[in-house]
């Protein structure tokens, strides 16, 4: 798979993940973005590219960082990172599955250089 295709797949999967984390259906998103529902489905399947403007609009809608949606950075935070350990001392009590969800959600909202 080319690097470009790989990136497209990552963006598609993060868009789907972010939508589910926001509690929206594809129908809700289509209505708010002024797009047809099958278009959202195509975007989340990686069959249609998104423009920078669309990506920003998705990030606003889902309240996640644009850079994470754009495929930058890791999909989830490193539980051993100092900042994470300092803030959340009891994470080891979570199940592996819950920890994974939590670290993914933390990565999704983490602002990076260039994010508004």
């Amino acid at each position, binding site marked *: 798979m080319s690097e470009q295709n790989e990136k497209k797949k990552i963006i598609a999967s993060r868009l789907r993940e972010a939508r589910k984390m926001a*509690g929206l259906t594809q129908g809700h998103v289509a209505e708010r973005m002024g797009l047809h529902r099958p278009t959202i489905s195509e975007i989340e399947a990686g069959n249609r590219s998104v423009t920078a403007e669309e990506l920003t609009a998705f990030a606003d809608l889902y309240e996640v960082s644009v850079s994470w949606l754009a495929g930058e950075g890791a999909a989830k935070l490193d539980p051993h990172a100092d900042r994470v350990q300092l803030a959340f001392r*009891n994470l080891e009590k979570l199940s592996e599955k819950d920890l994974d969800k939590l670290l993914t959600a933390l990565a999704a909202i983490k602002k990076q250089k260039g994010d508004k």
Partner: protein
Amino acid sequence: MTPTRTDLARRAVTKAAEVRDRFDIPLNAAVNVFDLCTEHIAPAITVRFKDISMEGMYLREERPEIWIGLRPLTRRVFNCAHELGHHVFGHGSTFDELQADGAAERPFNPDEFVVNTFAAHLLMPRLAVASAFTTRGWKAEEATPEQCFIVSCSFGVGYETLANHLVYGLQVVGRSRSDALLKTRLPTIRKGLLEHDTPDRLTVIDHHHTLPTVDIEVGTGLLLPANTEVENQELAAGHDTVRGRLFQIARSGVTRAYSPDGNWAILIRAMPHQYVGLARYRHLAREDGEDD
């Protein structure tokens, strides 16, 4: 000098009153804490409902966030107020792990004590509790389990939360009453209200409800005053019982419930059971089997 529990409690109660005052929430009324965080506090706090086994999290960021774990809705209400406490007291980011019912008491933590007390008094200030009982012709100090349950519904909190608040927080219920309040379980109360017609989850809203809305989950029974009608019957279909009209919440969305004489109305805001997502989208209409 280390502050005593009394000092901490006083600080928490004062802060809760300040927050209510700042956002024009009368001290004798209930508050919707999700709306308070997302629509009234500036800058707004993003509230997310997560499918994670935890009580909640507070993220101290440029745009602060509160994450609420997978718990019953009434517990989610209290936990949101608890995390809001971390925010208003300027605490750092905090993760509150799941507290199993009946688990051994943890070591005393002043910050947790302060925000728990804050949450209780933000949601159930003394005046609002007294008012909730007196407007119904009851006395808080003589509260029966059924009365305590109905009042807890008006605050959106759990029965046990209000019962504990009456006994230990406000200390308005004497020893003889407190045992009955603390030992009575919800199925018994529901059965007492509706006999054989009891849903597993029940909310009771009467004419004394102080909020214009009621947040409720799909699958919950909503007992409203007799003769109440709803505009969208696909969202909530009702039938008459000895205690009023019982509506079964069938799908998420918003609909108006009203008395035919035009004297009373309320907005029912239904969200999926164990909703996962942003608080601001919790009441969006969803069709059965719609993609997730």
